């Protein structure tokens, strides 16, 4: 397999993981919104309510930065990262 094909395979793997986490916190948990709201979440808010105000939103922020770092590592591994910027 060529270097480029391997790079793309890893990139696609990372995409799948990223989208899986995204799916859980944007869609998955809200399938159980009513049940989850009975539980007390962080800072004492009802759990589903907390996810909609802060939890999911904050997780998305962290997820994007994590994704960007992982992708940079993949690019470096195959020598595809750009030089002289940032």
């Amino acid at each position: 397999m060529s270097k480029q094909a391997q790079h793309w395979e890893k990139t696609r793997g990372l995409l799948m993981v990223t989208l899986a986490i995204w799916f859980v916190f944007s869609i998955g948990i809200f399938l159980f919104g009513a049940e989850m709201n009975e539980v007390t979440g962080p800072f004492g808010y009802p759990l589903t309510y907390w996810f909609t105000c802060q939890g999911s939103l904050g997780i998305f922020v962290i997820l994007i930065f994590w994704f960007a770092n992982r992708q940079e590592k993949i690019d470096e591994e195959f020598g595809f990262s750009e030089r002289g910027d940032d």
Partner: protein
Amino acid sequence: MIKGNFIDNLPKVYGIYTGGFLAFIIIMAIAEQMGMSAKVIGICFVAFTVAIYAIIGWLSRTAQADAYYVAGRQVPTVFNGMATAADWMSGASFVAMAGGIYFKGYGYMALLVGWTGGYVLVASLLAPYLRKFGCYTVPDFIGTRYGGNLARLLAVIVLTVASFTYVTAQINATGTIASVALDIPFQYAVYVGLVSILLCSMLGGMRGVTWTQVAQYIVLIIAYLLPVFWISNKIGAGFFPHFMLADEVARIGELEQQFGFVANSKENLAMVPKGLAGITKAHSAVNATPWAFISLALAMMMGTASLPHVMMRYFTTPSVKAARKSVGWSLFFIFLLYSSAPMLATLSKLSLMDPSLPTGIIGKSVADVQAIDWYQNWNQANLMFISDFNGNGTVELNEFFMGGKAVVLATPEIAGLPYVISGLVAAGGMAAAMSTADGLILAIANALSHDLYYKIIDPKAETAKRLVVARVLLVVIGFAGATIAAMEIQGILGSVIWAFDFAMSGLFFPLVLGVWWKRANREGAIAGMALGLISGAGYLIWVRNGGSGFLGITQLTFGIFGSAVSLVAMVVVSLITSEPNAATQKMVDEVRVPSGRTILGKQ
């Protein structure tokens, strides 16, 4: 004080700017103590901030295509994040969002999840690849990846439909705020708003818009957070509201139990002015079905990833790597405001509902409440209304009505904050609506000037001529938007949500598959865009005209149907026609690798 080039000095420049703005707020606060009238303070806030944006717009003037279309591709990640956040957070986010949460609770909060979750799709599926492509506009990518003028034209059409729906709402919002702050009729205020918007973008294009958007973000975030923290401290709810309002949320739940949600009769509701609503839904309980919540969130997420005015902000970063990081910063800056909106809604509701607070009005006598200054002001502005339906002389929960905008605009006054804060909030709302309108008008004008005029009609046009066309279009589109806004056809929020649905119906899959599916070809993309847009729009018209809809897809989520049709059409048509030629396949391979020159840079 400032040495070296502008980009290296950005933190210093905007640091001074922020300090200057805070000083201005303090001067206004002192002036208020010395007796300056509320009206003059409002005018000062709006005039001062708009003047600053206009100066930035003038300083950013340019005659180069690269600077005009993509700000010279040298906007650093963090600043691009701020600019995107301002570009993104519209008048709707600023003025209407807390109100929506206040009235509709959980069902509405799907928008918070949707309007942030979409950025994960932007970062992982699209932004870095489109940046590598090196295009000026979103249709530029479609036109080059799939080839041919028809694909490019269709992308221009989808972009124009979606962005134009959105921009009228923003011009409407600038008009509303300008008319309140400057005390002029709405029909004129709309054009005052438009001129302010054009001052930022006319001369400098994307470069001008970028640097004004950063300035606008700073104003709008200060204007949103300061009242939230102030009110929270003032009513003793906690010095950091985001972590400390659990008791208040629980208290609202108790009060809801105590007062009960009494349904009003039709005759009574007919007396309530149009656009005002009462509290009829629980504040923190789950009040929507899972599908209602998820479908709205999903539509907003896919719409986010297809809206061109957001995507084109990532064309301005220096590199692919920077584009990815920049999406993270954008969402961080958006998060600061979005996570505060539910807190503002909580504080606002508690201030009004809790009889043990001095500001509480539920349970007080109708005559007393009608004598309160702020009630009279906002009642006159048609944003508040009380009627003693059951004739017992006290205000019940079902007898108090408020407009959605009032939650943001009136809460500072209700909570007894000085007027200077209300002036600041008006400036913030103006900044939010202006920055989004600028991004949208520029997206449309750029697509028409670059893709329609330069690429399709006159490929030999010189740069100077192209930029003249771009500027003329900017003004024409702005005036068209303002004219429609002056007619006041739709509410602010409804048309914003439609824009997302239109964008996802026509553009989501053609964009994503253009990068992630090599087999996608021209015929497939054309079918995907055309059928997606037509079926989405058709569904909307059908439901608006009394159609029953299916699968619980409403007029707010019609993009789910449109994009599903788009996906099926695109895959089927691609597979039954021949695969893209070798040059196109090679191009896709190159897009997937960050290093090397941009695709269009090579041509």
